[in-house]
């Protein structure tokens, strides 16, 4: 049975990069006693897929990961799905019944490192698109260190940035260089009122003192067009004529969305 988990990654573990985090997560799964399914061959690996890698230093309360578990899928499978299971040496009716999603959450949470927590687990069909392919958007809170952009009028800068029809940035990757218009990738951008900030405080591992201002961002995400909150911050700094300091930010990913602004957690069935 393939499940999609929603989880948080907060606290010092935000300094563990995506690949290392994936490995730690798999080791936790092994320790938990949850039966994961494996690929075949000499170096079997878990069938696991994260929706979107989280950058080093970022925290999140909206991470998604799909995991193939070696439990019986309670929903009827079509022949194609059966075949796929067979290719990894499994037969649905031979598999043990799955514990409840609540029980599975408890099992994995006992083994996850401090700051990592699975909130929910849903069953997703065998052939459904991978989480990674579904992601279209993500919400973020970006906290600014108090010394950073201290004199700037953020609200005005945001408004004038949003008023532009195109915001072209020069993107340099190890493989290529190109100009990209990020304006269409910004769904929402605003300076947070204190209230919202306080409401999300429970997720934060840091003392928001010293970070009294924050921005809310809703951005395009996923493999087709991904806009990082840092990139938008850099564009905002350019607008303000200030130097961008990536180390003055604390970023919290709040949620990820699939098509039609549907939160990823709304996809899949409860079990």
């Amino acid at each position, binding site marked *: 049975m393939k499940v999609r988990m929603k989880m948080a990654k907060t*606290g*010092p*573990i935000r*300094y*563990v*990069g995506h*690949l*290392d*985090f994936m*490995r*730690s997560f*798999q*080791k*936790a*799964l*092994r*320790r938990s006693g949850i039966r994961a399914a*494996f690929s*075949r*061959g*000499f*170096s*079997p*690996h878990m069938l696991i897929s994260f929706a979107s890698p989280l950058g*080093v*230093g970022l925290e999140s309360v909206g991470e998604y990961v799909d995991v193939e578990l070696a439990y019986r899928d309670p929903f009827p499978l079509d022949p194609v799905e059966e075949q796929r299971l067979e290719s990894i*040496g499994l037969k649905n009716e031979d598999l043990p019944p799955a514990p409840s999603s609540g029980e599975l959450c408890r099992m994995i949470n006992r*083994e996850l*490192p*401090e*700051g990592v927590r699975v909130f929910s687990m849903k069953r997703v069909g065998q052939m459904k698109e991978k989480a990674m392919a579904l992601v279209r958007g993500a919400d973020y809170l970006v906290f600014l*260190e108090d010394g950073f952009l201290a004199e700037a009028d953020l609200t005005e800068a945001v408004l004038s940035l949003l008023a532009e029809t195109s915001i072209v940035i020069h993107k340099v990757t190890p493989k290529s260089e190109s100009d990209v218009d990020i304006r269409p990738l910004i769904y929402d951008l605003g300076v947070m009122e204190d209230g919202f900030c306080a409401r999300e405080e429970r997720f934060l*591992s*840091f003392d928001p003192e010293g970070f009294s201002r924050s921005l809310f961002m809703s951005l395009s995400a996923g493999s087709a067009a991904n806009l990082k909150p840092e990139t938008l911050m850099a564009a905002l700094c350019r607008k303000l004529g200030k130097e961008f300091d*990536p*180390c*003055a930010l*604390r970023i919290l990913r709040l949620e990820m969305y699939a098509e039609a602004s549907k939160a990823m957690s709304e996809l899949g069935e409860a079990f």
Partner: protein
Amino acid sequence: MKKTALSDRILREVEKPARYIGKEINSVEKDPEQVDIRFAMCFPDVYEIGMSHLGIQIIYEQLNRLPYVWCERVYSPWPDLHRIMKEQRIPLFALESQEMVKGFDFLGITLQYELCYANILQILDLSGIPLHAKDRGEEDPIVLGGGPCAYNPEPLADFFDFFYIGESETVMEEVVRLRRDMKKAGRSRAEYLRELSHIPGMYVPSLYEVSYREDQTLAAFSPRYPDVPARVKRQVCMNLSEAPYPEKPLVPYIKVTQDRVVLEIQRGCIRGCRFCQAGMIYRPLREKSLDTLKKEAERMLEASGHEEISLSSLSSSDYSQLPELLDYLIKNFRSQSINISLPSLRIDNFSLEVMKQVQDVKKSSLTFAPEAGTQRLRDVINKGLAEEEILAGAGAAFRGGWNKVKLYFMLGLPTETKEDRKGIAHLAQGICDAYYEIPKKDRNGKCEITVSTSFFVPKPFTPFQWAPMYREGMYLDRAKEVKEEIRAMKNQKSIRYIWHDAKGTVLEGVLARGDRRLGPVIEYAYRHGALFDAWTDYFNMDIWMEAFAAAGVDHEFYTLRERDTEELLPWDFIDIGVSRRFMEREWERAREGVVTPNCREMCRGCGSRSFGGGVCFEERDDKGHSVNAWKSPELSTLPEREEDEA
């Protein structure tokens, strides 16, 4: 949530910040108020290397089992963080509590290789602990060193309060308990160290004095006080099956070198290769019981969630119950999708059959370590591996579907000639021939032979401890000779040649057999930027040459001359249990090219029998052979092979 010692800003600036945050699975947290002794255990290299070290995990387990001790870990901050910590005067901290090392009772540093000596001073410096033991006050931690390089601790004598000679499983508890008791009684640091010197195996350098002759060799080495022992005896754990072992291994977040469960199956080695320090300083061979290993493997995999288990020992094929152990591992863990990694197995039909079950033949390569290119030189070094065995092993491997072979050699061995160096190329070609003898239809494409050479560095407590070394240029010339000969081989395109850097070799040689006069050299080098010398990208020999000049030390004194067996060596005061007479005899036999049988073939009276256990007490037949003497295990002892359709 506990605060990290480093600010968010710093953690965002440095490479791999997860090196510094602690909180790994199975790391131990204690309440500082509830313990009497804070112990910082340090591996003076980067986190990924240090976390892969088994010894520290054993000490960590052992000390944390004591309710009154909290043992934490410390590793070397990478150069990027080093710079920030120096600039902003941030004190070095231990990972678990994120608290300053300076406030600890002990700072233990493992001495695994000579090229980390500058990093030791970095640890002391960043901690704010005076570099020189004599300048430390009552509030400073007691700094101790242990591990292979502690078998010649003299170059580091200025910087350590004491050295622990031997295995931690023996008297470590006594060492910390004594500190606790004396601290409670309000006794001073000096009083503690004096008292400590009475515990067997503990060497307190400040309690000894050294004098030199005009020719620079050592004249005398003696205790300053009558109650301080003149010789320090290595402490050996004779019952490994009962000894503490990390059943809940630390699981790092970031990928480290040894990212797997490590199962130490035995300690010591019967082989007696004359260049090998480990083969002497860990004598006698002591096996762990099969039951212990089964239990440990299971618990460690369960507690860590690792997806791989690896056997650890100097020569795994010599473990007397290897077939039973492998059978157990394969039967129990393959079905759980756990990889089994088998380094240091001798290549024969048995090991090939086992490897076929646990690895992908097409992707994996087989490793041989002939160490020398001709049989003559292999006899000199007492490497009991004949050319026929290598070729037979390679042939069997090729027929089994492998086509990648790695060969390890050393250059600069005593008595080595041009013929021996050319022999490396010829042996590689011989292996190619073995491959192309197989009918083409049964071959798996081309064969790939990788020849790798490192330069031999004579180490204390080996029969080669008297041997001369060479200048940097001569090492490179030797590598060039090998390279040219390989290029002249018929199948040269199938042979890849890799050789190691020679500059580090020379420095390693100086430090390995150095004496107390090297202290100022190490200090000068560190103060002028030497750091991470074991890393080619960071190693700068110029700094060290400047340091030798500044300290007025002729480094070639330590490398180029052949030492006389009459000479008093700086490490002679340590008694490792293997007698100096045995070493001298072995040095003699080496030069005659005479092979010495291994411990299971015949006891050669090295002295280790005095420890009262291990291989020295195995049952013998009427020829004097141990009943566990090595023979290739029967293939029928192997578990049934699972057919894999994928």
